């Protein structure tokens, strides 16, 4: 994709070197997607508009997402609006309240009119054809308080990438306003579940973060659980029940090639990639104990990290790879421990009275560890700092389990099971617990694992 920065009406285009940089930043799955950055107008514009951490006075930023011009424009605007509606930090305004129909997306909107409906930003854009026939999308973000354009980009790509362009525009706008990285241009692997509970059929599946573009990666004959995305490749690690002991496999979701991870003398489970994507860390069950191991994917060398009679599982690396958080019942009940990447000096960090903690996952920002907490018959999802302080429960109920982090560290997805003969569904919530949204899946869904940003 080619990205060009769209200058505000009175600015000029950016230099070529900047263009090149933008192009290099796009990578990921879709080649042939080019973009260029249309640079912000006023140098005086604020660097960010929202302190996402602000406490009880927090108010989401109202934004008017107008229909982009062109035949495909409204569809793109719809995807963007839906993204913002789940972002917690941005609040898309009802189109019915809009004071004007934007006929020229390149002209500044009537700031005084938009101020009347308390819009803080107006997003305009158009979708058309580039001279070479590819899809060309432009957006401009206008600050209503100044009437100035504060961001603008143009993307040229294959029409099949339309949804991705909507997510990339969403990320650009989200970043511009919040000063945080985006997360919309990302995917989630999960387990699609169907059939009665005693014989649940489970399929390895992948979708966009908004629930669109579901693709099934396994057929449902084989029991599969706990998929985890590689941060650096198209690989997914997961546990599958085949012949012999259940074990951890890696599947390349592009080629369909799959292989067992190591040749361990027992059940391996609970895999996760290291932040550089070079290692898989997992549990090995032997006798009545489960311990942590890593396997280097290049050398195939395996390393034992813990050697206890306990259940050590759900390991997750810190983003710099220097530490591991995991759960263990070595002290009697499931609790969260942090240890060095070599497995030494494990220190318990979870201490709430009468609670059991499990499935810890380190945030990609490094600032929090998300977990499942069982207390008083409820299963909640929460976060705490890596030293165990600042615990905050985001949601609690009959059964919430298995958080996974958005690539920007501001949201978690998890699954919620009503129990009985029903089945789990996937939800997302922001890390501050301000908003929660169902992620639409056709059937039951569990074990979500968020992948990296694609662009």
């Amino acid at each position, binding site marked *: 994709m080619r990205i060009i920065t769209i200058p505000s009406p009175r600015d000029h285009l950016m230099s070529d070197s900047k263009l090149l940089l933008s192009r290099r930043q796009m990578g990921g799955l879709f080649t042939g997607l080019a973009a260029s950055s249309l640079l912000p107008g006023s140098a005086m514009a604020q660097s960010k508009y929202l302190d996402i951490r602000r406490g009880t006075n927090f108010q989401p930023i109202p934004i008017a997402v107008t229909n982009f011009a062109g035949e495909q424009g409204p569809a793109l605007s719809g995807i963007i609006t839906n993204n913002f509606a789940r972002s917690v930090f941005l609040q898309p305004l009802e189109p019915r309240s809009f004071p004007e129909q934007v006929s020229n997306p390149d002209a500044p909107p009537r700031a005084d009119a938009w101020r009347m409906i308390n819009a803080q930003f107006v997003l305009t854009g158009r979708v058309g054809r580039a001279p070479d026939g590819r899809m060309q999308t432009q957006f401009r973000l206008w600050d209503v308080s100044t009437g100035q354009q504060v961001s603008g980009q143009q993307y040229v790509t294959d029409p099949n990438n339309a949804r991705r362009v909507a997510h990339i525009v969403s990320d650009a706008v989200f970043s511009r306003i919040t000063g945080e990285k985006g997360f919309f241009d990302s995917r989630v692997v999960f387990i699609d579940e169907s059939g*009665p*509970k*005693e*014989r*649940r059929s489970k399929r390895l599946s992948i979708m966009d973060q908004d629930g669109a573009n579901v693709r099934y990666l396994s057929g449902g004959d084989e*029991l599969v*659980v*706990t998929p985890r995305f590689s941060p650096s490749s198209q690989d997914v690690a997961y*546990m599958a*029940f085949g*012949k*012999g*002991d*259940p074990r951890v496999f890696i599947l390349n979701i592009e080629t369909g090639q799959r292989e067992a991870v190591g040749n361990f003398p027992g*059940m391996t*489970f*609970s895999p996760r990639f290291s932040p550089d994507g070079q290692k898989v860390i997992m*549990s090995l*069950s032997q*006798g*009545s104990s*489960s311990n942590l191991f890593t396997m280097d994917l290049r050398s195939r060398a395996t390393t034992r990290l813990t050697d206890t009679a306990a*259940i050590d*599982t*759900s390991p997750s690396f810190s983003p710099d790879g220097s530490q591991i958080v995991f*759960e263990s*019942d070595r002290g009697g009940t*499931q609790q969260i421990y942090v240890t060095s990447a070599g497995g030494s000096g494990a220190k318990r960090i979870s201490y709430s009275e009468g609670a059991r903690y*499990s*499935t810890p996952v380190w945030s990609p920002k490094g600032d929090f560890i998300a977990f*499942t907490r*069982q207390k008083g018959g409820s*299963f909640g999802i929460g976060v705490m700092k890596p030293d165990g302080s600042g615990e905050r429960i985001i949601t609690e109920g*009959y*059964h919430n*389990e*298995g958080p996974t982090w958005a690539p920007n560290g501001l949201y978690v997805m998890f699954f919620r*099971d009503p*129990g*009985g*003969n029903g089945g789990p569904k996937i939800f997302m919530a922001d890390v501050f617990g301000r908003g929660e949204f169902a992620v639409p899946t056709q059937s039951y869904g569990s*074990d979500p694992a968020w992948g990296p940003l694609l662009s």
Partner: protein
Amino acid sequence: MTFMISARTLKIVAALSIGLAMAACSKNPNEDGSGSGFGSGLGAGAATPGSQQDFVVNVGDRIFFESDSTELTSTAQATLDKQARWLQQYGQYSITVEGHADERGTREYNFALGARRAEAAKSYLAARGIPASRLRTISYGKERPVAVCNDISCWSQNRRAVTVLGGANS
């Protein structure tokens, strides 16, 4: 509280015989080979001595655990004693002990917990003279409940180790 038919049936007759309960079920959950812990092709009535049906109906193929426990209760030990005697008499069977957990735990931990329960049963059988070469274990964690509802009457049925003749994957 909602019960499935099979769950209610199981609950009522559990004290009598799991084997008969299974015979009362309209469908056979093991036909997909997924190892849910049921013998296949069971029917009510007299079982041929030494048959799988004999084992399930007259010996009892499963033991139950307390919540988050891998301790063998006295009832569980009595069942395993009967299993060991029967398995010594009928030495042609290889044995897979399946470990299961209830749904009130997280997935990863429950795999490990199920493995521990299977191991506890296997160790007990081995100590009663069943050669280790005949015994293997597998854990299904919380993936294959037999009883489905939102209370302890179901959870207690699901916290189990099931001795499967011939192995779940053979």
